[in-house]
């Protein structure tokens, strides 16, 4: 009985820390979708680029990990701004579907650039000690604990930011009614730029964390695809939904690896999505997505 509980907790906790990273990336998706109604398919590539830059600063330029982390953040802000300014602002007023296709194009450009600069190999950070710590019988490496800690701190920060900070309220106002927010002096362009910056920053933090856990390679960008269903599951325009969606996908992935993998190999890659499809069949707007407010 006790060992079974430990077995469950082992996978649950690992899933939770991976899930909290997914939640970060999901936050990026939701932010951009909420304020600009664009689904940014290049989110996974933002993540990969962030991971590569941090890796390159640490290993190739032999900088301290935290210094390279900060450099990566600065770079992500620039990347977010540049994409918004150069790629999306000229497309304001074009059909949403064209803009989404442009973000798809962006994925190939970013992936190509990364391969050009750093090649195709998977490289490891190997910074944090491999040795797991024992938390009441559940063994977790430092990396998992740090990942969970950093993600949770960031998610709490953003939750408070959107609820109470004035800039957060302006951003939600733009998401709610663009013309009305312009009539009150809120600059929609500025809000768009801030959204893209935050999205780029949180995904590259996610990228650095995942890169530390599993190595940095071009395949990192597929996390974007993995998070997308989590976002839809939580409701594309709900920040809370994104966080919960990310956590659920992470936990389901690890639990299915623990319990179902012996019977059906590699089920953990698919299982979360089976559950997501079922949930979406019952609630098509996602768990926390906006239902139109209708006064009766």
């Amino acid at each position, binding site marked *: 009985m006790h060992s079974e509980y430990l077995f469950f907790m082992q996978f649950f906790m690992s899933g939770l820390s991976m899930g909290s990273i997914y939640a970060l990336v999901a936050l990026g998706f939701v932010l951009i979708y909420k304020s600009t109604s664009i689904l940014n398919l290049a989110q996974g590539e933002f993540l990969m680029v962030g991971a590569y830059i941090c890796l390159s600063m640490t290993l190739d330029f032999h900088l301290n990990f935290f210094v390279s982390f900060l450099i990566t953040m600065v770079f992500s802000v620039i990347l977010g701004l540049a994409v918004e300014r150069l790629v999306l602002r000229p497309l304001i007023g074009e059909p949403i579907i064209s803009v989404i296709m442009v973000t798809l194009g962006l994925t190939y450009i970013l992936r190509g650039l990364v391969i050009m600069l750093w090649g195709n190999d998977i490289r490891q950070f190997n910074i944090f000690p491999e040795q797991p710590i024992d938390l009441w019988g559940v063994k977790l490496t430092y990396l998992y604990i740090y990942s969970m800690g950093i993600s949770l701190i960031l998610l709490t920060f953003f939750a408070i930011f959107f609820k109470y900070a*004035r800039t957060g309220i302006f951003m939600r106002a733009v*998401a*709610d*009614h663009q013309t009305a927010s312009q*009539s009150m002096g809120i600059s929609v362009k500025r809000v768009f730029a801030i959204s893209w910056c935050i999205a780029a920053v949180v995904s590259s933090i996610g990228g650095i964390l995942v890169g530390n856990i599993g190595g940095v390679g071009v395949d990192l960008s597929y996390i974007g695809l993995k998070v997308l269903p989590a976002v839809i599951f939580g409701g594309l325009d709900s920040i809370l939904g994104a966080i919960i969606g990310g956590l659920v996908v992470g936990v389901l992935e690890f639990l299915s690896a623990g319990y179902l993998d012996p019977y059906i190999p590699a089920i953990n890659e698919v299982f979360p999505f089976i559950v997501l499809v079922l949930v979406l069949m019952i609630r098509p707007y996602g768990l926390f997505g906006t239902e139109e407010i209708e006064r009766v």
Partner: protein
Amino acid sequence: MLNVNNIEVIYDDVILVLKGLSLVVQEGQIVALLGANGAGKTTTLKAISGLLKVEEGEVTDGTIEFLGQRIDGREPEDIVRRGIFQVMEGRCVFENLTAHENLIAATRTRNNRKEIRERYETVFHYFPHLKARRNVLAGYLSGGEQQMLVIGRALMARTRLMMLDEPSLGLSPILVSEIFTIIQRLHEEQNMTMLLVEQNAHLALSIAEHGYVMENGKIVLDDSVDKLKENEDIKMFYLGLTEMGTKRSYRDSKFYKRRKRWLT
């Protein structure tokens, strides 16, 4: 205070909506802008507030001056900062934000915390009813509360010229008179200058001092409210009055002829 001088507005590079429109709003006045649907009243407000740009519209000719400075072609946020605030038609509240957050969202152009807090209290001074409802999502407020909220947002932004676009739309008569009482109080107590667009000419003329009548993108009549109320055409088309005791027939009113005079 506001000087709109012979402006022309074109949507989508082809549709000419305003054809040489001029109007003046003096400081401390309530000015009413009347006209039928599609006359271009809302377009006029959007030209002033800069929101036209968002909708592919453009002021192609003429000038708009506010406090002696040209504001045509400027960004909406710049115009709000100068003190012009358009309260949009149809109560565009942020439905998924609470009433409180709606008010805070209007403070983009203000940064002084103390000032914001004072304005916040002022809003509740005029709309005490909103105070109890401030943590409710704006989408769930009643129509009257939403209208109060959008006027409250204008108060948050240190507005000097408030442009109200059909504040009576879709409200019950009691609520309408309540809202108009508050509009008048704001005018008197806060010395708020207002440009009021209304379908309900009775109401608009009851609080305004000066009135403009629009037809087809042009001003066709412009006078003090007392004189407008005496005008036969206004009585007929906007106030629905006839001369007392006289029999009314279509032939007598020569409706089409008199409309036509205005169209040219």
